[in-house]
């Protein structure tokens, strides 16, 4: 599976209040949340972002609260993947559990400028900046996590497990 899209670059420590401010947490409708994605970091972001776009960020992306609304807001805004130097762990779990493509790659932020085009090959973890002709490789995904991803997220994984246990 590959995904290709236009890149938006963000810095280090983008926190969950930045991704989706608490004032919108009374809903978990992805579209509604998506309309406020990154609002306090870049107020115009949700009007500029297009479906299939990719976020590239520095260290510790998604730090702060456990709100899965952050993943929903990103998905709701149509963003296809987040590539970062590192992720905060709860955000990372939430992304894996709900099937948002997240890849960690050392130095990824330095290779992109906003507006570049990226191509990501998910299986091999190859990340290519098509605009600049540079590429790098993401950290491999552990087998167990791949199992959750292959099942289509944690809830599908649970369903399968219960069915197997019942047999």
């Amino acid at each position: 599976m590959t995904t290709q899209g236009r890149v938006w670059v963000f810095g280090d420590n983008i926190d969950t209040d930045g991704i989706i401010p608490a004032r919108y947490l009374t809903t978990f409708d992805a579209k509604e949340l998506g309309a406020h994605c990154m609002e306090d970091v870049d107020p115009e972001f949700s009007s500029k972002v297009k479906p299939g776009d990719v976020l590239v960020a520095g260290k510790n992306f998604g730090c702060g609260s456990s709100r899965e609304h952050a993943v929903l807001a990103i998905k709701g805004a149509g963003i296809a993947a987040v590539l970062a130097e590192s992720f905060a762990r709860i955000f990372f779990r939430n992304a894996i559990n709900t099937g948002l493509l997240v890849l960690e790659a050392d130095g990824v932020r330095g290779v992109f400028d906003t507006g570049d085009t990226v191509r990501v090959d998910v299986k091999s973890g190859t990340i290519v900046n098509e605009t600049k002709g540079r590429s790098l490789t993401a950290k491999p995904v552990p087998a167990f996590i791949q199992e959750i991803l292959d099942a289509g997220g944690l809830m599908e994984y649970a369903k399968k497990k219960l069915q197997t246990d019942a047999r």
Partner: protein
Amino acid sequence: MGMTITEKILAAHSGNKQVRPDDLIMAKVDFVMGNDVTAPLAISQLKKYGLGGVFDLSRVALVPSHFSPPKDIKAANNVRVLREFAKEKGIVNFFELGAAGIEHALLPEQGLVLPGDLVIGADSHTCTYGALGAFSTGVGSTDLAYAIAMGEVWLKVPPSLKFCYEGKRQPYVYGKDLILYTIGHVGVDGALYCAMEFVGGVIESMSIQERLTMCNMAIEAGGKSGIISPDATTEAFVKPRAKRPYSFYASDEDAEYERIYEFCVDGIEPQVALPNLPSNACPISEVGEVKIDQAFLGSCTNGCLEDLEIGAKVIKGKRVHSDVRLIVIPATPTIYKDAMEKGILKTFLEAGAVVSTPTCGPCLGGYMGVLGDGEKAVSSSNRNFVGRMGSPKSEVYLANPAVVAASAVAGKIVHPDDVQ
């Protein structure tokens, strides 16, 4: 080879003799918690995927605290989702209004989370319960849904970092100051994915409340968990409340740590985290002139009886500055009642503060004290991200309860000695 307390708890819950950092395990959970922000999404997931069972009706807590008492119709409907789910399934630990408080103060107080437990909660500050010697970590709504149905959670065994504190604390230096100092030292991602183990003479001399405060903020350094070995202080706290058996674990002498930090606390002043990261910790003598519009004493970090007592002692017989709003929020109904009986609430009211019913409220810019454009607040809570307590143009300074109370009197951020 030896194991850390964290590794021992994770091994015991995953049916392994030994676990090592980076092992991926499926572990049994002892207790699961969700709140009014995270649980509605989890409940909708359970419905969507047709998972109707609850792994253990006595080991799930649903606590509306963030926007409860409901601040608007949407918030009220979220609480309704929790209430109806709890009723339908027969979940006993549903806490509303008269019984509800901030989850991380409520669960230890009610004896629901215990030493040796593996606890997950759909709230990032679930790491708080490590103060009792439990492995406890925050997860998202889907993890919560999975755990409610299956009674387990997938985890990567975290490497452990050891933080050792020795020496003699200055007056007005509390667990809050030591954790702010530590986060300032290692940075907001300094403990990313790691278990933060707090040890040393200073930790041993701390009350449970201070330990809870320290473990509460492990997440602010990126930590997966914070943990303190249970001891006689833990036993004294837990014994009268526990509703089921518990076990004490301790790290082996030869346990492996990714890194060991040693701090001598003698020279550490009360700390203030400047906007907009908890890691911007600064000794109070170097903060400079910061005029404030609001002071907030509450939250899961510093909203317990001991915290209110500390604040009340500083403010007794003084007046809140005419340019400042002081908001005091006891974290649970029991704390509220105890603070009332001890005259603490009266002290605050006489000083010109407002006292609210237990809620997270202002801590996350929810309601009950949201900041406007350009306003500055000093807060006993744990986060000062952009927009955390309201307008993205406002600023939050994190501090301990004594500094919050003193600053409310002075109208600017000051050392408690400056108002005596």
